[in-house]
């Protein structure tokens, strides 16, 4: 197997230059870099939209934007953050790290890798074009929320909904190909001696995530295709007047949507499981239970989707089933948290920026997990559903969970990518500003949600004013703190203290045996794992 790969690599081990290096790249590192920059740019685009939302919500009343534009902002913010920030960042990290961690020269399917990436600018170009047209006064951008419930998105959708549908199709194709590539790489290209149960946890979590992607992205493609048919070809999948069923839409959407939220957290679990042992200078506690917990979460994520639909009037037996099944997810998730804490226990810890983000992840993700447990209790969810309590919950798991995991991973691996150490002082400054402001931003949302503030509203009644003002202040501090991150990454790319190949005193694994920066083709001769 590896012999074949070496052969194909013989005739292009020079580094191409110019724009062609990026356009035609088949190199896992270059493609990884492009994914990561794409995600970073989209982070600022989606983040600016969040700031528009928060600015409007600073005070009760309509001050800055029309309700119609507000809905476009929440919709595009959600879509961009989910499909344009978190997912591409994970694929970028997988591209960079999976081959290095398993001792392979590159990804298994390098040309497909190129295509998966280059579909993304097209997909988001379409989506953002709809916003540009809206700003130029030509109709409305998608305005039905990132969950695009029918019939608001079908019979009542703006004409840009078709842009949205094709954009989602492109993102889906890109994700499916990316996932196939990761599975093919992991199954075929591990160094001799690296059995499945010796793979680093990050590789494991991505392996499982890739299966989730292959299972549910086609479902998403299916649901948007049904929308397209309803809108233009006279079908009535979701149109009650034609004998269709608007609730069917929600079932299909959430059959994709709930596994999707695990797609957005499992790789971060993997990153944290790499970082905590390094900085505690102690092996990960309960390696095999970590793997089994990830697999159980993935399995359970397929049978809990209707916990998003408790208020749609499901039969009570259905409500009970989805409530119990969702509660079960707390068990493997708890196991992960306990294992991280036990890894830290009696270690010899230092607190560089990646470790700080990892520790904040464990604290804050756990808070998001607690609110998740509260949300799955159906009778209480009747009060929580579609309020800011839910907004608080998913931002704890997505921002202080998924996004913190990504930031931790970038600080952890950037010396390996660039050969330079990042500026630790700036990293810590970025960390503290981000960690504090995200709580000022998202914690008060729990209160207004419990007090009865619905989500996705551009204006609210007076009793919610104080905490909304607070959240907006947090939001602006959070947003501008990310510029420090950007600056630090750029600075590291240009130079700095040279990194050793091991980089971190406690680091273990094949990626740390390669020089920093890692050579263009990672392992041209496979290492042997004992």
């Amino acid at each position: 197997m590896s012999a074949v790969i070496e052969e194909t690599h013989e005739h292009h081990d020079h580094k191409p230059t110019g724009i062609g290096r990026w356009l035609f790249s088949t190199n896992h590192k270059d493609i990884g870099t492009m994914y990561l920059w794409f995600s970073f740019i989209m982070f600022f685009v989606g983040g600016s939209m969040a700031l528009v939302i928060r600015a409007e919500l600073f005070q009760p009343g309509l001050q800055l934007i029309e309700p119609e534009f507000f809905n476009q902002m929440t919709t595009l913010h959600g879509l961009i953050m989910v499909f344009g920030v978190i997912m591409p960042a994970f694929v970028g990290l997988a591209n960079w790290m999976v081959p290095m961690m398993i001792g392979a020269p590159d990804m298994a399917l390098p040309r497909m890798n190129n295509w998966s990436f280059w579909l993304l600018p097209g997909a988001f170009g379409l989506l953002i074009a709809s916003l540009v047209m809206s700003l130029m006064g030509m109709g409305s951008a998608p305005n039905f929320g990132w969950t695009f419930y029918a019939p608001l998105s079908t019979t009542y959708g703006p004409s840009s909904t078709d842009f949205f549908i094709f954009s989602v199709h492109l993102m889906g194709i890109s994700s499916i190909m990316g996932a196939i590539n990761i599975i093919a790489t992991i199954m075929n290209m591990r160094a001799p001696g690296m059995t499945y149960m010796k793979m680093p946890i990050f590789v494991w979590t991505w392996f499982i995530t890739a299966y989730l992607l292959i299972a549910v992205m086609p479902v998403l493609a299916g649901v948007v295709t049904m929308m397209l048919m309803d809108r233009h070809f006279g079908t009535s999948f979701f149109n009650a007047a034609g004998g269709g069923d608007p609730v069917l839409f929600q079932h299909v959407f959430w059959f994709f949507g709930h596994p999707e939220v695990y797609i957005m957290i499992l790789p971060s679990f993997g990153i944290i499981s790499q970082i905590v042992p390094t900085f505690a200078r102690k092996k990960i506690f309960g390696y095999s239970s970590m793997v089994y917990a990830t697999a159980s979460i993935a399995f359970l994520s397929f049978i809990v989707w209707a916990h998003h639909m408790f208020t749609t009037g499901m039969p009570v037996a259905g409500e009970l089933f989805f409530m119990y099944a969702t509660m079960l997810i707390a068990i493997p998730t708890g196991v992960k948290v306990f294992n991280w804490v036990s890894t830290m226990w009696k270690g010899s810890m230092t607190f560089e920026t990646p470790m700080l983000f990892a520790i904040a992840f464990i604290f804050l993700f756990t808070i998001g997990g607690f609110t998740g447990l509260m949300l799955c209790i159906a009778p209480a969810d009747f009060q929580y559903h579609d309020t800011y309590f839910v907004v608080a919950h998913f931002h704890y798991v997505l921002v202080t969970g998924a996004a913190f995991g990504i930031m931790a991973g970038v600080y952890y691996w950037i010396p390996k990518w660039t050969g330079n150490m990042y500026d630790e002082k700036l990293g810590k400054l970025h960390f503290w500003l981000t960690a504090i402001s995200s709580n000022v931003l998202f914690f008060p949302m729990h209160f207004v949600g419990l007090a009865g503030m619905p989500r996705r509203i551009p204006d609210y009644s007076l009793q919610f004013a104080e905490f909304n003002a607070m959240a907006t202040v947090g939001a602006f501090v959070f947003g501008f703190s990310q510029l420090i991150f950007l600056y630090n990454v750029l600075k590291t790319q240009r130079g700095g203290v040279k990194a050793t190949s091991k980089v971190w005193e406690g680091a273990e694994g094949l990626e740390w045996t390669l020089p920093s920066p890692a050579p263009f083709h990672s392992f041209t001769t496979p290492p042997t794992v004992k």
Partner: protein
Amino acid sequence: MRAATRVAGILGLMLISGLSHAAYQLNMTPGVTSFSQGAYDIHMMVMWICVVIGIVVFGAMIYSIVKHRKAKGAVAADFHENTTIEVVWTIIPFLILIAMAIPATRVLLAMEDTSNSEMSIKVTGYQWKWHYDYLGEDVSFFSNMSTPMEQIEGMEQKGENYLLEVDNKMVIPVNKKVRLLFTSNDVIHAWWVPEFGVKKDSIPGYINESWIEVPEPGIYRGKCAELCGQYHGFMPVVVEAKSEEDYVAWLDSQRAMAAEAAASAEKTWTQADLMNQGEKVYKTACAACHQANGEGLPNVFPGLKGSAVALGDIAKHIDIIINGVSGTSMQAFGAQLNDADIAAVVTYERNAWGNDTGDVVQPADVKAAR
């Protein structure tokens, strides 16, 4: 200049409103019904369990962060597995979950039991208002938000019930099991009153059920909870619970009003009366889309000022309002507005904003067009 005074006005009002209300709330309301109390109890129970688990887990983490740091000379131990402890921390959470599931199931089963109700109200969501139909009572009406645009745009001090007030409240008798049937005329909405603990989606083509039994007279306020388009944030629910006698009296007054409206549809109106009535109807039913100044929103909602329809054939104008334009958000208002209201709004649209056609449309003309 106008913009500058406006900005100054907004800033001034922001300051005043910042000072004048400090009545924020941190937690879920226990409400007034057995559902809201049940939801509140289970919410508090699960929350406290989470707090306790949080103290244990975060406590261990903080202890470790303080004690087991290299800077303090900590040397890493070598353990990385312990089957007993791993089994224990799988089983204990499982038992805790069972302890939560039992009361949750009990509360849920009680909520889903709509049997033995004493009366029924059909609640229909429209973009962006609610319609209440008292089944078997011959009483039905729309309920629109009544907060004026001036308050929303910051030109006027916001009232106490800002965005939580309507023109016609839903009225129910106290201490009666009232069955609610939810459906929708267009997109999905969700009817929610936190103090009742009831949130149900109103879905086109579906009829969802729930019930309320309110022990005390009072006014209870909530909102549409499911994103339903542009004015989703402006779709309040207001319910007034009254004593049995007051409720019956209210039903009678509703019927009397309906009879009066029917009678007024028979008579011939003056243009001034039509314009007055038309402006009222326009503000509640049409201005959300076509805007108060009749200019609409470019490429989304057509302007009526100077529009070919408003200046052209009267029959076509009436037809659009009665039957709507299918496949667009211009709904059929035929069932929502009576003949007099439609006649008034057509007259208004044909004579307001410089559309000086001088046309007068009478209820009889609308009746003939139906």
